[in-house]
């Protein structure tokens, strides 16, 4: 018989269940090449202003387009967190300061206590740019890294969650999920579980990825980088455009006082392709499982979804595979688009950023189309929208699929 241990126990409840208890999206914010804060992204979507520009970044000599946050060079880190100074954490700080996010998390901290709020972050490359640049300045005699290089606070994957937790003064459970381009969608699943089991009462989830040479030259070596602005779902699509961005969401439990109009996280579905490290399953097997599991967790049918924000990277293989999967689960009756023609591929920040774009669609009755896409791939039979539209959008699905065959779909929106 195990002795019960009662001193200072944080978690209490184990109410094992299968359906997801919806969580309230109390606040969200995002920052990317379209601007700082959610209003800037919405405005750019509405006016079809893409954030993609010809690549001018460090001394990168690739002919491609990138989506860059110009404001980063001027960001100064909060003095007590100066060791965290790197492009990725600058972007994190800049984003946390938008949309009243700091005030909302501070109110949650007062309400629940710092130890009862979790911090779950997604990133693929964290502050690796700092290391890339440091390797150009190794000591000529010893080969040592520069003295001002801070490994734990910059390069290490956990740097982002450590920074966000310190910046917000939160001390609950925390980690980074790093599963390439699904990272910051999967953090919603972590928060759901942590809150269901009672380990925390609220969670800040999010993701940040910033430009670096590793991803630009790495994706280029795989032949996956387009020389033009990326064209999702176009018959002539020929690869991704890499972008940088950040997004954060504050999640709380629904209560009796929750408004019927509140934005909710309704379902999360995760799966693995078990196919190839850098190519999706050709029939979209893992994608189908992720979407079906998300619908099932939400207790919804395919026809309950009003808009799908696709992963839509604009590579030949992703869009073909995802298109088949969406057609399999939804037929051609649900409006779909990829917004990567605006933001570029935000990699580890794609999941959170596109979840927020999908929520903007719900809040504003707005269906984003697809910039740069000219002629749809006739082999993909879904209701892919090039032009922007309007209409009542109650529930949305957002797809994120990553290297290693890591898939995650989110269902967000209103309950009724």
């Amino acid at each position, binding site marked *: 018989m195990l002795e019960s241990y009662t001193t200072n*126990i944080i978690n209490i409840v184990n109410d094992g269940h299968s359906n997801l208890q919806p969580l309230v999206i109390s606040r969200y914010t995002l920052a990317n090449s379209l601007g700082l804060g959610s209003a800037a992204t919405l405005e750019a979507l509405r006016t079809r202003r893409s954030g993609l520009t010809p690549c001018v970044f460090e001394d990168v000599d690739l002919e491609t387009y990138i989506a860059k946050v110009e404001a980063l060079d001027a960001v100064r880190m909060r003095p007590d967190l100066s060791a965290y100074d790197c492009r990725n954490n600058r972007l994190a700080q800049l984003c946390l300061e938008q949309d009243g996010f700091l005030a909302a998390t501070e109110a949650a901290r007062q309400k629940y206590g710092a130890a009862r709020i979790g911090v779950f972050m997604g990133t693929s490359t964290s502050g690796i740019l700092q290391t890339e640049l440091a390797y150009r300045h190794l000591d000529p005699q010893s080969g040592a890294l520069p003295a001002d290089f801070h490994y734990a606070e910059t390069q290490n994957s956990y740097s982002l969650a450590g920074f966000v937790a310190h910046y917000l003064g939160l001390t609950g459970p925390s*980690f980074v999920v*790093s*599963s390439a381009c699904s990272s910051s969608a999967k953090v919603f699943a972590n928060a759901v579980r942590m809150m269901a089991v009672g380990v925390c009462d609220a969670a800040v989830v999010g993701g940040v990825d910033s430009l670096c040479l590793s991803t630009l030259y790495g994706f280029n*070596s795989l032949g996956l980088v387009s020389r033009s602005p990326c064209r999702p779902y176009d018959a002539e699509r020929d690869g991704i455009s890499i972008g940088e961005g950040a997004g954060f969401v504050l999640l709380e439990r629904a209560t009796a006082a929750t408004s019927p109009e509140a934005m909710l996280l309704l379902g999360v579905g*995760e799966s693995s392709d078990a196919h190839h*490290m850098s190519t999706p399953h050709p029939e979209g097997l893992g994608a189908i499982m992720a979407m079906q599991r998300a619908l099932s967790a939400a207790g919804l049918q395919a026809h309950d979804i009003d808009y799908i924000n696709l992963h839509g990277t604009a590579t030949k293989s992703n869009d073909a595979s995802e298109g088949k999967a969406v057609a399999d689960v939804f037929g051609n009756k649900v409006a779909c688009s990829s917004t990567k023609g605006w933001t570029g591929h935000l990699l580890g920040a794609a999941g959170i950023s596109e979840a927020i774009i999908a929520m903007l669609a719900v809040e504003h009755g707005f269906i984003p189309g697809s910039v740069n896409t000219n002629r749809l791939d006739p082999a993909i039979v879904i209701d892919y929208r090039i032009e922007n539209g309007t209409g009542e959008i109650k529930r949305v699905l957002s797809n994120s699929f990553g290297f290693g065959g890591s898939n995650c779909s989110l269902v967000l929106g209103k309950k009724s």
Partner: protein
Amino acid sequence: MMRLYVEGIGLLGPGLDGWSASRDVLAGTTPYVAAPTSLRASDMLPAAERRRAGVPIKLALAVGQEAFLQAGRDTKTTSTVFTSSGGDNDNVHAINGILATAPREVSPTRFHNSVHNAAAGYWCIAAGTHEPSTSLCAYDASFAAGLLESATQVTVDDATVVLIAYDHPYPEPLNAVRPIAAAFGMALILTPRKTEKSLATIEVDIVSGNGQETAMRDAGLEALRSGVPAARGLPLLAALARGEAAQLCIAYLDDNHLDIRIAPC
């Protein structure tokens, strides 16, 4: 409180060549003798993938395979949680070197092996599993984060989960700023209910404040525990090896720790 059942164990580290071979050492009945970690590519992988496998993939697949063989369980129906402070550290060092000077020719294999979830990707291919896979990092607390996440998946999703933790040293110059003592991996198959294969019950709580971390009794094993983030799970394996009820403290973040009670089944 989250309650889980351990059904399979895998281990590979310096002088620890598999869980079965290391049980007496961890139980304290045979002396620990450090020796380089015996790394080998898993026969779970097709030949082409085997050639491309870096140290984390070798560690992860070796410990995962040992745990599944012991449990006699199907890899296809088990969710996975991978946790590591780093990733493929040899590869990250090589890529940084390549990017520092022209021409910047990063090979496709180098790039896709550089993602933090490379070991997870190779595992899912080798194991043929479509179940969810999560790849975590929490710096020195990566093992605790992995155990906590695994416990929530077992408890909330009613899932069987294999937790696979691994770390290995960086080459210089990164080794100087982030020393990791050795290549080390461990795996635990965790189930929501007791089965006829269950070895022990584990109860996990996250607790506020700093606790007194449970150390290894042997100095060499304690150096390994404190010198490798993934090896912070060694006290748990030692308790399992002794086959006795035990209460352990594993440090998590600055302001909390995991309280773990183990009892043999």
